[in-house]
């Protein structure tokens, strides 16, 4: 548990990351101190008011990670690999500003993922299970438990 850097007493539950000129500064406050510092900590009651709607608001964002184009402009950081497809035109402009061509001529890569071993899967599943339980998502937890069971019965991992 990390403590609030303002009061040093309560648990820090509000985490603020500022990114400017390629430097990242993180601050951690408890709810009360965050409010004092003027950060909005409440979720809006009506969540639909902030969820993206298609087009009519005119806000461009990535369909996968919901990163708004304005956020990319502000930080220079993309949200996920799919952003490259969403904002291709603008990204090409950024790339064109650099010296050299846009087209990559180095090493190429084609995903040839080997079947992952049972042990690795089980380790991951167990972790996901405990997290699902922590979040009280019991339906998901049950599904994960079944997957672990299947994996063990298939004998793909050592007991």
């Amino acid at each position, binding site marked *: 548990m990390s403590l609030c850097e303002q009061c040093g007493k309560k648990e820090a539950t509000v985490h603020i*990351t500022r990114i400017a000129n390629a430097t990242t500064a993180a601050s951690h406050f408890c709810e009360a101190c965050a409010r004092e510092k003027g950060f909005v900590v409440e979720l809006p009651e009506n969540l639909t008011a902030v969820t993206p709607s298609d087009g009519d608001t005119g806000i461009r964002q990535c369909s996968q990670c919901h990163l708004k184009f304005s956020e990319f402009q502000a930080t220079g950081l993309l949200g996920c690999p799919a952003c*490259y497809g969403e904002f291709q035109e603008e990204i090409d402009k950024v790339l064109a500003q650099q010296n050299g061509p846009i*087209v990559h001529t180095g*090493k190429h890569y084609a995903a040839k*993922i080997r079947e992952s071993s049972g042990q690795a899967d089980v380790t991951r599943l167990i972790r996901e299970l405990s997290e699902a339980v922590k979040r009280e998502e019991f339906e998901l937890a049950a599904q994960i438990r079944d997957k672990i069971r299947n994996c063990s019965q298939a004998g793909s991992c050592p007991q």
Partner: protein
Amino acid sequence: MLQSILTHAIPPWLSHQGPESDVVISTRIRVIRNCARHQFPHRASPHVLARVFDEVTDAFRHCGLGDSFNSVNFRLLDARERQFLVEERLVSPGLADAGGDRGVVHDRPGRVSVMVNEQDHLRMQCMDSGCCARELWVELDAIDDAVGMQIEYAFDNRIGFLTCRPSETGTGLRVSFLAHLPALTMKRSIAGVLDTMQRLGITASGFFGPPMAAAGPLVQLSKSAVRGFGESPFCDDMAQAMQQIVALERKAREQILSHERQLLTDKISRSYCALCGADRLEVGEFLDLSSDLRFGIECNLFDKCTILDLNRLTLFVLPAHLQTFLKRDLGDNEIPESRARLVRSFFTRSTKE
């Protein structure tokens, strides 16, 4: 305590065994890779960060590179333990400060390290002593292939490996050298050399990278590959640029030795006295003074210790190493004092032998 430092396994990049290591202390190359199906670390939920961390750890366990890789989750380390890894150059200072499931997968000797969930999912680096960019690329290329079989990388046929910052897409490759240029510094031609490098897109920074400006004789020279360049030709170009600096530095050393020998021996003696006589030493001060001794050892003008021992000392005067080997936490004010004591006892031992 001194004994434990002198027998401590030194990271390969400080081993002083590579080609041109009289001038080039070490070479480091890194590539950026991201998982195709996860958000970049700055947008990822704690759950996704944990998942990426597990995937990378599993990938190294199963990619057939042997079981010499050690996975370290920063959640389990205190600030000093993280700083220790920063000082060994296995991770960046930025990663050491960030929270959540981030960390590093590295081989035991400290040649290869993979920062997990830094700005990108994977930042894989390989470093060693001397000027060896091409050799390191061959090694890193193989590791990259092996990991790429386990993790699906984000890759686009047109623009290359996808990165959190679009300007870094392409090969995701960066080559850096840590060079010791005392003669060019003494002859005041270092600024001109670094200017020329700047024009080639090679940036200079101090021993610890950006926050400390390039000053004094220890310089880091780095450049990221531009798109349109293959990895091997880029590494060759960088090595060639570095070779030119090596030639200039060696020539300057010869000139000083034949025309300004006394000036140099005087400088070395004074620096040695300052190091042995100081009651407090800051890191920057230590680096400047010890650079004169390093120059002296290279020119056979100083024989109270070897370069390898000096490299060890350079690592152990850094705050986290110092505290780890004293086995206690020191206040900010105590560190320069303990550092001076360590340096003094180091040279007293060397002189006695």
